C-alpha cells in the first residue's frame, strides 16, 4: 500500500514541477518577446499547459476527494476562458495594428491557395 502511495506522490510532484517549469518558460517568453502576438503565445502556454499540469499533479497528490473535483473544474474553467480571451486580444490587435507589415504577413485566400498548389 505504501508503495502505491509513494508512486502517487512522486507522480504528482513530477507533474507539479513540470507545470512550474512550463510557467518558467512562459515568464521568459513574456519578457523576451517583442510583439504582442508572440507574447500572447507564450502567456497562453502557461495558462493552459502549465496550470493544467500543476493542477493534475495536485489532484494526484490529494486523491479522489471533493477538493480534487473542484480542482478539475478549475482546469475546465481555465481551458474555456483562456483561449476565448486570447482570441479577443488577438482579434483586437489585428484590427487596430497600424503597421501590420512590420510584424506579420497577411495571407489572402488566393495567396494561400497558390502556396498550397506549389507545395503539392
Amino acid at each position, binding site marked *: 500500500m505504501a508503495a502505491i502511495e509513494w508512486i502517487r506522490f512522486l507522480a504528482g510532484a513530477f507533474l507539479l514541477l513540470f507545470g512550474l517549469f512550463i510557467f518558467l518558460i512562459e515568464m521568459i517568453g513574456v519578457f523576451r518577446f517583442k510583439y504582442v502576438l508572440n507574447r500572447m503565445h507564450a502567456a497562453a502556454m502557461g495558462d493552459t499547459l502549465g496550470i493544467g499540469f500543476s493542477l493534475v499533479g495536485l489532484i494526484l497528490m490529494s486523491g479522489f476527494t471533493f477538493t480534487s473535483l473542484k480542482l478539475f473544474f478549475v482546469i475546465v*474553467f481555465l481551458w*474555456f*476562458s483562456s483561449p*476565448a480571451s486570447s*482570441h*479577443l486580444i488577438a*482579434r*483586437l490587435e489585428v*484590427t*487596430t495594428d497600424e503597421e501590420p507589415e512590420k510584424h506579420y504577413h497577411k495571407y489572402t485566400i488566393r495567396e494561400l491557395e497558390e502556396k498550397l498548389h506549389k507545395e503539392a
Partner: protein
Amino acid sequence: MSRKLSENEYGKTASGRLKRWLDGDKDLFLDNVEMRPQKPFEEDEETKAKRAEEKKRVLKKVYDINNNRQVRVFEKIYRVSAALFCVLLVAMLLMAISQLPAIGEAERPVNNEVSERYIENGLQETGSVNIVTGMILDYRAFDTLGESHVLFIATCTVLILLRIDKNKKKELEEEQNDSIYEPENDAILQTVAKVLVPTIVIFGIYVILCGHLGPGGGFSGGAIIGAGLILYLNAFGFEKTERFFTAKTYKRLSFCALACYSLSKCYSFYTGANHIESVIPLGTPGAILSSGLILILNICVGIVVAGTMYTFFVMFRKGGY
C-alpha cells in the same frame, strides 16, 4: 400589466406616489422656485484697473520683504520654527517606537481579551462557523454597513461624473467612438459565454450563500456575479442586458438591499442595547439557514457589490445605460 387599477388611479395611491418619487418623475423645483440661468461674470475696464492697482498697493504694503521689517523677522522665525517642529515630531515618533512592546510578548495589546472572546464564543454567539464572517457581519456589522454605503456613494458619483446627456450622445458617438474596433457578436466569445455565464453566476450565488459556512461572503460573491454580468454584456451587447439591468434597476436593488441591511441591523442593535432576547433563531451551526441575520446581510452586500461592479464597467465603457 397585472395591476387592477388604471395608470391614473395608481398614481394617486401611496405606493404610486412612492414609485414616482423613486423614479424622480416629479421635479421638486419646477413651478416652485424661479430659475434663472447664470450670467457670465463681467466688469468694465475702469473697475478692472482700479482693482489691480489696489491689489498692487496691498501687496507692496504687506508682503514687501525689503522694506517691511516685521515680515522679514516673521519669515526667519517661521523657517526656524518649522525646522524645530520637524525635529520635535521625529523625536516624539522615535520615542513612541522605542516604547512599543517587543514582538511576541504575551502582554502586547494585540493579545487582548477581544480576539480571545471572538475565537472562544464566536460560534456560540453568532452561530457562524466561519469566524471571520461572524466578526464582520455580526460584531462589526456597523463597519460593513459603512463599506456598502461607500460603494453605493462611489457609484452615484461615477454616475454623476460620467453620465452622457442623451441628446448629446448621438453627436459623441460619431465623433469619438473608439469602440468600433471592439469585436461585436463574436461567435467564439458568445459560445463560451453561453457556458460560462450561468456557471459563474451560480458559483457567485454559492459563495454568497455559504459565506457563514466557509471562505466567501457578500463581497467576494458579489464580485464574481458582477464579473459574470460583465462577461454577458461583452458577449451579447447592450440590447440584451438592458432588458433586465438598467440604472433604474441598479438604484432600486441597491436601495432595497441597503435599507434591508440597515433595518435588520437596527433591530439587532435595539435588542442588544436593551437586553431583549432576539426573536431571530441562530439555528444549528453548519446548516445553510443558520446564524441569524448573517445570511440576509451577506445577500444584501452581495447585491450591492454585484451592481456596483457592473455599473462601474458600463459607466466607464459607454457612459450611461
